């Protein structure tokens, strides 16, 4: 029962998908106004978001009995789930009147959107790699279909194909990396892998080959998902070709979920600051990706002429800043940098708002979103222009808006992590923000200061008068996005606190102290009390693995009681002076207990 209650957000999201599918069938095939399906989807996802925020942050891990090693629910998962669900709801509202104009079937669209959000929740909340992979695929498969959902358009189908091929490749890389992690540690849950790798890091170099290869594969896969350079080349084409509400969902929800899992996976599996003792450490790789992503994203953004492409490169550049945040872990707790969740929140609000405005300009199947089409927007549609202004300035990081507070807090936290050496990278990031200002202001220049060119003949519509869709639900969505951008910029305190508590829960801590202090004592669960001399590495790894699993399992399991009693006795023995087995090198890694209440998680 507890499990069902704790799963409620996921179940509600999935139920929304099923409900919308049923309503679509019941409402008749040729119903001209199927917009209510979008409203139902948005309502369902919003309810799920509210449930996630209320149920999950306070739920201690041990409350779940059946789904113990499958899902983790905590403040981190609640924060990102709510973000994903809110973005999904916004995309559903944006789609209400956009879809009929574009000739897209609304029933299938809204159903897929709800299922994709369900997958994203499982992806974010996964405690083991099987659930994580399942969630990723459920999320991605729905988005592949959504991207190609405008079947009459060559752009959309091309976008769908590109996204599918590169997304499928990324999933396959992820799976290959997961297989190597499994081979290195014999475990598929995050805590168990972390414990296994920490045990293996102190031994011979051969043990590091599998985790090292796994790291590269995981970073490639997650780099594709969050659109980091050099795995970004699908992004502009797919964002441009996909229907704009889908683009908003991809740039917001998929990227937020990707960053949530990227940071949890990398920081948990390769516990900072030791990073598993790898030759190519995750820190170096993340820093390299971050700098490359920022620079390339911003430089290529400058030369674009299409609003959707500019926003696509902007989303790549923002991935760079976020990667810098993930790289600079909090120095005290070695948890996720507390600027990252807030930055994502501000970025998602602004991006959804900006893409929302673009989607409202796509009436009657218009796909062309080149900059000149924005000309005169402030005169024709002052409210849309104002929303665009707020969102674009927020993305650019101009003071009264959320993006500024996000950047400020993120860079401040990066500096705090290591004031002496990180200053270079913060300067690089700030210079990048200045470059980005050019293309953001170009959008506003066209919207506010250019008059539509006078073109003769058939090009009149194409030249300037981008027809806007009248849609109350979409206006509500972009209004909320713009207000959120303002709120985050002016009164960031509450969300900063939420971001901080989310970040402190980001790293799943394996219970390492027992495993490393008394490796021999852990064995009775599976083999003889003393490790066999012939294969010390394997049995120690097995012992560590068992310990990780024990820590992650229900404390009342009867069949473990005997083993646990043995271990407790042995543990107290080993704690006595003189009888303590030799610790592996660098014990300080595990000496400092995490401050944020994350121990044993």
């Amino acid at each position, binding site marked *: 029962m507890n499990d069902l209650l704790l799963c409620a957000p996921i179940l509600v999201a999935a139920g929304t998908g099923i409900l919308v599918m049923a309503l679509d069938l019941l409402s008749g095939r040729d119903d001209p106004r199927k917009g209510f399906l979008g409203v139902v989807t948005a309502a369902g996802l919003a309810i799920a978001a509210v449930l996630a925020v209320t149920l999950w942050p306070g739920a201690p891990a041990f409350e779940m009995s059946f789904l113990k090693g499958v899902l983790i629910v905590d403040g981190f998962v609640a924060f990102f789930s709510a973000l994903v669900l809110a973005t999904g709801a916004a995309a559903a509202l944006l789609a209400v009147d956009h879809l009929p104009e574009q000739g897209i079937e609304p029933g299938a669209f809204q159903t897929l959107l709800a299922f994709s959000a369900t997958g994203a929740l499982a992806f974010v909340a996964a405690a083991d*790699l*099987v659930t994580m*992979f*399942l969630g990723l*695929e459920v999320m991605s*498969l729905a988005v*592949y*279909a959504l991207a*190609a959902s405008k*079947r*009459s*358009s*060559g*752009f959309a*189908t*091309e976008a*769908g*194909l590109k996204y*599918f*091929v590169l997304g*499928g*490749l990324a*999933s*396959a*890389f992820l*799976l*290959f990396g*997961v*297989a*190597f992690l*499994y*081979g290195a*540690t*014999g*475990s*598929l849950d995050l805590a168990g892998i972390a414990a296994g790798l920490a045990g293996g890091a102190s031994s011979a170099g051969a043990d590091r080959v599998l985790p090292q290869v796994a790291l590269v594969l995981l970073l490639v896969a997650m780099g594709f998902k969050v659109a980091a350079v050099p795995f970004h080349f699908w992004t*502009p*084409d797919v964002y*441009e*070709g996909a229907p704009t509400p889908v683009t908003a969902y991809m740039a917001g929800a998929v990227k937020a979920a990707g960053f949530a899992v990227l940071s949890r996976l990398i920081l948990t599996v390769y516990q900072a600051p030791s990073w598993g003792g790898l030759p190519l450490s995750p820190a170096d790789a993340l820093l390299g990706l971050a700098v490359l992503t920022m620079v390339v994203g911003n430089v290529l953004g400058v030369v674009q002429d299409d609003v959707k492409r500019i926003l696509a490169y902007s989303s790549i550049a923002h991935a760079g800043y976020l990667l810098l945040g993930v790289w600079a872990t909090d120095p005290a707790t070695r948890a996720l940098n507390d600027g990252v969740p807030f930055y994502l929140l501000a970025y998602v609000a602004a991006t959804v708002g900006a893409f929302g405005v673009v989607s409202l300009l796509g009436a009657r199947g218009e796909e062309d979103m080149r900059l000149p089409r924005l000309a005169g927007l402030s005169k024709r549609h002052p409210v849309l222009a104002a929303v665009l202004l707020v969102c674009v300035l927020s993305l650019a990081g101009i003071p009264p808006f959320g993006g500024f507070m996000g950047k400020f807090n993120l860079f401040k936290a990066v500096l705090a992590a290591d004031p002496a050496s990180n200053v270079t990278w913060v300067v690089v990031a700030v210079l990048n923000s200045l470059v980005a200002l050019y293309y953001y202001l170009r959008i506003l220049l066209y919207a506010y200061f250019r008059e539509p060119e006078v073109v003769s003949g058939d090009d009149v519509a194409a030249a300037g008068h981008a027809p806007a869709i009248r849609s109350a639900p979409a206006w509500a969505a972009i209004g909320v996005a713009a207000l959120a951008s303002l709120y985050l910029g002016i009164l960031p305190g509450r969300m900063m606190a939420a971001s901080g508590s989310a970040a402190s829960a980001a790293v799943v801590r394996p219970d390492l102290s027992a495993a490393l202090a008394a490796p021999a004592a852990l064995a009775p669960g599976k083999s003889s009390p003393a490790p066999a001399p012939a294969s010390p590495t*394997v049995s120690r*790894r*097995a012992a560590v*693995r068992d310990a990780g699993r024990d820590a992650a399992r229900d404390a009342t399991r009867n069949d473990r009681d005997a083993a646990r009693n043995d271990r407790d006795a042995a543990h107290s023995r080993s704690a006595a002076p003189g009888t303590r087995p030799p610790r592996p090198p660098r014990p300080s890694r595990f000496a400092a207990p995490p401050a944020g209440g994350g121990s044993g998680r």
Partner: protein
Amino acid sequence: MHVTLLHYLVLAAVLFVLGLVTLATRRNAIGVLLGIELILNAANLNLVAFSRHGIGGVEGQVFTVFVIALAAAETVVALAIVLAIFHHYRTVEVDRVSQMKN
């Protein structure tokens, strides 16, 4: 000859590389799809091999069953997209499916 874990890993690595080469060289969308399947199956082989010969339990094999089901679902979506592509472009050659300017 005794078949060890290493043999499986080498075979999986070969499959992985073949999959990548297929992806890079095939112009036909179905061929690209086959390349992705090859990589997924290479990973499956790794999971099963680690489960049988390594230090893992049975989880690896369970995971493989999940992955096989997912790969089937992925193929369905991919073929639907390929059909839509064919309707529009009258070809499934990926390098001829390109309207976007760069």
